Each structure stands twice: as C-alpha cells, then as structure tokens.
C-alpha cells in the first residue's frame, strides 16, 4: 500500500534580482520529481549538496509549497488541505532534522518539547501527557528523568534521540529523516541507525531517509532514489542499485565512497569536476560535463527517466537507446 504519492513535484526559486539586472535567474531546486513511499518500507534519498533532496523533503511535509505537482497522503489530496484539516493531516508525517543542536528549542525543557505536539493535536490531557512523554523517552532509550532537563544538558546523540521522540509524539505514519546522523560521532551514528530500525519494526513506520553516506543508505533502505541537480537520475531496489548501478553518476558515487580497509583502499576521484551552479545548468543532461561516458546527444538533449526492469528507473542516454 502506498502511503504517500508525490507526482511531478517542482519547486522553483527566483534568486534575488541583482541591483543591475532586470531578469533574475530561476533556480529549479526540484524539477519534476515523482516519489512513492510504501507503508512500512524505507526509501533512501541520495545526492550531493544542492541536488534538491532537502527541498523535496520540505515540500513533502508542506514546509514549502511546491511550484507545481501533487501530493497524496493516504489517498487524500494533501496540497488541497487548509487550516484545521491541514493541521490534522500534518500529524501523519513528521520530520527528524540533521542538526540536533539547532533543531531543539534551548528554552524548552525536554518534557515540554515532546508534549507540545501531543497538546496541539489533543492526543492526551493532564497527567496522561506526562505519562506519554515518559513512554516516548523510554522508547528512544532515555530515562524519564530527562523530561525535566534542557537541551544543553545532552550530547549530540542524546539530542537526536529527543528529536526522534518529538517526531513520534504525534503518532505519525511517515517519518522523514533528513541526514539524521551526519552531525553525529561515528560511534553514536550506529546507535541512532539501530534505534530507527527498531522503531520501524515495532511501530510499522514508513521512512524517507535522506543521506549522503551510501554505506548507511544501503543499510537502511529498501529502495534508493538518486537525485542530481533537482531531478531523479536513478531509482532502484537497494540490492540492484549497489550491485549494478545504471547511471554513470550513481556508479561514480559508489566508487568514490572511501573503503575502510587499507588493503583495498586507494584514493579515488571517481567523478571529476564539481556540481554545476543551479542558475547555470549545462544544456542537455545536467551530468554531461562530469560524465565519463558522455556522448554527443548528452550535450544537446535532455534524457527522460525511463523504466528498465522491475522498479528500476534511469535517466541516461546510454540506456535510452537500448530501451
């Protein structure tokens, strides 16, 4: 069952008009993305900075309104909701942020932070709120005494647990985790990943897991979506994409992951060059200036996202010709 279906999502920003230029360039942060989340499964969303993955996440929970596109949450049109109905629906989809320092209010106790959502959505009253907060803290591996403390009294890993408890407080079905472990120490990352996986099994949660660490993405995801310059360039079941990446960008990303083994390790610069400026994308395929397998057509015409086999999508001329 699909719990969330987003179609043709576009989010354009007009970069601030310069003093002397009349026309301001348009940044296509997200440029026509389809995304489906299946209940109880995890979709891993991968890409480098500026590829639009965080903007997409913000659009999906309606922190940003899309320029174009539709989102269906549990069958209903999420974008059509207003006021009280929207607030009710927001409960179903929650977010865990990257930075556990800036995403908690330093002046609110942990108990108040977690209880806020419960109160707003009237999920409990009086003493029951406190009891729920304790249960949530226990669920994320913190003592219930944490409730009276403030964010500065906790380490990064503990704060991320608090962020997870806050997201879970309103009993969501979908959790969007935007780089939930990249600000944490190595030894703490594994703790948080294991916690998220346990919670998923226990509560039947659906995850959209955004990360740039491919090792972690492979570990948690059922399906992997790769974005580049606002577009999906490849999507496939996790096993397939790591075994046989179809897009040269995906292959390059996988090859550039440093291997924690000196016997295999060598410095790798698998993808030359830099991510292009979003206001000045190359013509044709956005990846063509960095692509090792570039052809003439790649510089002229944009490839479409085409299906190749079960659940495998790729946006590349190499495969377009065969299809």
């Amino acid at each position, binding site marked *: 069952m699909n719990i969330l279906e987003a179609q043709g999502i576009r989010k354009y920003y007009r970069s601030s008009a310069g003093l002397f230029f009349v026309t301001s360039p348009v940044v296509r942060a997200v440029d026509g993305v389809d995304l489906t989340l299946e209940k109880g499964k995890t979709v891993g969303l991968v890409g480098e900075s500026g590829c639009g993955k965080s903007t997409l996440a913000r659009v999906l929970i309606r922190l940003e309104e899309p320029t174009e596109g539709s989102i269906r949450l549990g069958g209903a049109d999420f974008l059509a909701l207003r006021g009280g109905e929207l607030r009710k629906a927001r409960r179903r989809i929650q977010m865990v942020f990257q930075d556990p320092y800036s995403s908690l209010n330093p002046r609110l106790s942990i108990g108040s932070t977690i209880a806020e959502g419960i109160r707003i959505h009237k999920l409990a009253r009086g003493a029951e709120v406190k009891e729920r907060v304790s249960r949530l803290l226990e669920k994320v591996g913190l003592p219930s005494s944490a409730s009276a403390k403030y964010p500065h009294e906790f380490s*990064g890993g503990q704060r991320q647990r608090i962020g997870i408890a806050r997201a879970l407080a309103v009993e969501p079905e979908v959790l969007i985790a935007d780089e939930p472990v990249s600000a944490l120490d*190595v030894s703490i990352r594994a703790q948080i990943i294991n916690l998220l996986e346990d919670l998923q099994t226990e509560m039947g949660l659906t995850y959209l897991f955004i990360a740039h660490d491919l090792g972690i993405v492979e570990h948690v995801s059922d399906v992997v979506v790769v974005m580049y310059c606002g577009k999906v360039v490849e999507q496939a079941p996790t096993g397939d994409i790591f075994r046989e990446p179809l897009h040269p960008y995906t292959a390059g990303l*996988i090859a550039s992951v*440093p*291997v*924690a083994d000196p016997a295999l390790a060598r410095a790798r610069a698998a993808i030359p060059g830099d991510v292009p400026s979003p206001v000045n994308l190359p013509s044709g395929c956005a990846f063509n200036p960095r692509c090792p397998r570039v052809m003439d057509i790649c510089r002229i015409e944009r490839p479409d996202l085409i299906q190749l086999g079960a659940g495998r999508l790729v946006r590349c001329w190499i495969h377009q010709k065969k299809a």
Partner: protein
Amino acid sequence: MDTLIDVRNLTTVFETEQGGSRVVDGVSFHVDSAEAVGLVGESGCGKSVTALSIMRLISSPGRIAGGEILFEGRNLLALSEKEMRKVRGNKISIVFQEPLTSLNPVFTCGEQVREAIALHQKVSRSESKTRAIEMLRLVRIPDPEKRYGAYPHQMSGGMRQRVMIAMALSCEPRLLIADEPTSALDVSVQGQVIELLCELQARLRMAVLLITHDLAVVAQMASRVIVMYAGSIVEEAPVRELFDATAHPYTQGLLGSIARLGQRSGPLSTIPGNVPDPFGLPPGCRFSDRCPRRFEKCSSAEPPLIDISPAHRSRCWLCGGRG
C-alpha cells in the same frame, strides 16, 4: 627514516569555572620525514587541540601546560613568538576543515596565496604572483591565471579547499597538518581532494599529519595511525596492522560501527554510551565505562601504552602489562 617532529608528553589545559580540563593529557608521538600519519578520534578527543598545540595556536582560556614539541631538533614550545612565526605557515602549515570560513572573503583567492608566499620568501611582487599561479596549477585548479582573480564566494567548496592547500604548500612545508580536510565536502569531491593530497605528499616529499574522524580516509592516505580517546592516545599502529589486528576495544568499536557498502545484514554494532565529558572521566581506564570487555583492573588503574609489536602500542590491560 629520520624523525621530523617528536611530540613528548604534550599536555594542553583549558581553564574553566570547574577547574582545569586536560583536553590533551600527556600525548607522545612522532612523525618521520615524508610520512603520512593519521590522528583519529571522535569530537572532544583532543585531536584538533593537539594540532593547534603543535602550531602554538592555543589561546586563552587554553594553554599548553607541559611537554615538548621537537621539530627538526628544536623545541617549538621554547621559541619566542617571533621565531615561531618563521616556522608557522612556512615549515609547518595547516589546512582547516571549513574552507569558506578560513579564507578572507574580501581578497581574491590568488592574492591570499600570494600573500602567504610574500610573507615568508624574499621575492618581488611579480615573482610572488607567478609563484602563486604555479601553486594554483599544482593543486589542479583549472585555468589558474583566470581563477587568480576569483573571490572565495565565486568558487565551489572543493575549489576553495584546493586554494587552502595551495596556500599551505606555498612555502614548501616539511610538515602539513590537515585537520578534517574533506569533512565539509561532498562525497564525489572528497575523493578528489584525498587523491590530490596523496599525490602532493609523494611529489613534495613532505610529512602529513591527517586529523580525521573518518577511518576510511585514514585507510586511504596514512601509513601509520594514532587513535585518541578522551585526551590520550589509546592505540598506535601501522595502518594495515590497525585494521587487521585491532588491539584496543575502542578502535574495535569504531571499526565495527561503520556501515560498509556491501555488508547489509543485521543491526550495526555500536559502542554504548557517550564520549565522557572531561570532568566526568571514569576512574582507571578512560574507556572502561563503555568497554564491552572491561574487568576489575580497568576501573582501578589506568593502563600504560603497552607494546604489542615494534610499532604497535595499545593502552589496554587486555594486551598484558603489569599493573
């Protein structure tokens, strides 16, 4: 191989309201000429403070409280500030993590490299500019004559880090300290910068002290590794030996908690608990409260660094030793 820098019993203290905190506590290690050594640990372990102590860049409330840093036979801690300035940026230079905040936004990148050259070498203005352009070419910035006039904000993160490296290498240092040189960069660019550093290290025959939390980066670049925990060295070994015959339970935990590509099954192994704060160190071994293999002796006495093989030392009672 001759020893280039010999750090002996370095102790750096930060004065706080709760008293002095020994952030670096009796650290001893050496780096040979033209050798790449990795200094690994999590946030707060003292790795960056060790680097800043070598550069004598510790400012109040911190101070270097004891030890010696012998560089080419001279104790850097005994030099006057004027003498130290001839070493800093000249014979020993440093590349920081965040290239955007390390570069001055109101000067062009080329000018900042030229300034570093002019500061330490008696050359004419046009000569220093020619050399600065050569340095930009050395770090493979495309079209260096043109990019000389570019401001930091006009360059990508990877290019800015190349400028930082060019600046650090402009006086042909004997020792380059690279403090998390790739952590702020995208995956595809990380590989490029590591490859560049490896190549330059071999070509210029300089020593590199690579400070990082990422064991995979160390595996690619370093020939010897030093692991720090809570202000002291817990293990030191040639890189292959560290990965193949890991001796300290902390290092074992770090290696185990990495989500590696192609190894997907089961939960990740973790190190329980959090990095201790400097005032809450457990008695005896600093890692004892998180260690899965602790026994009575661990909480009564702190183990010394015990020799396992000629170049492999571990601070753990499991490795033998008398207590």
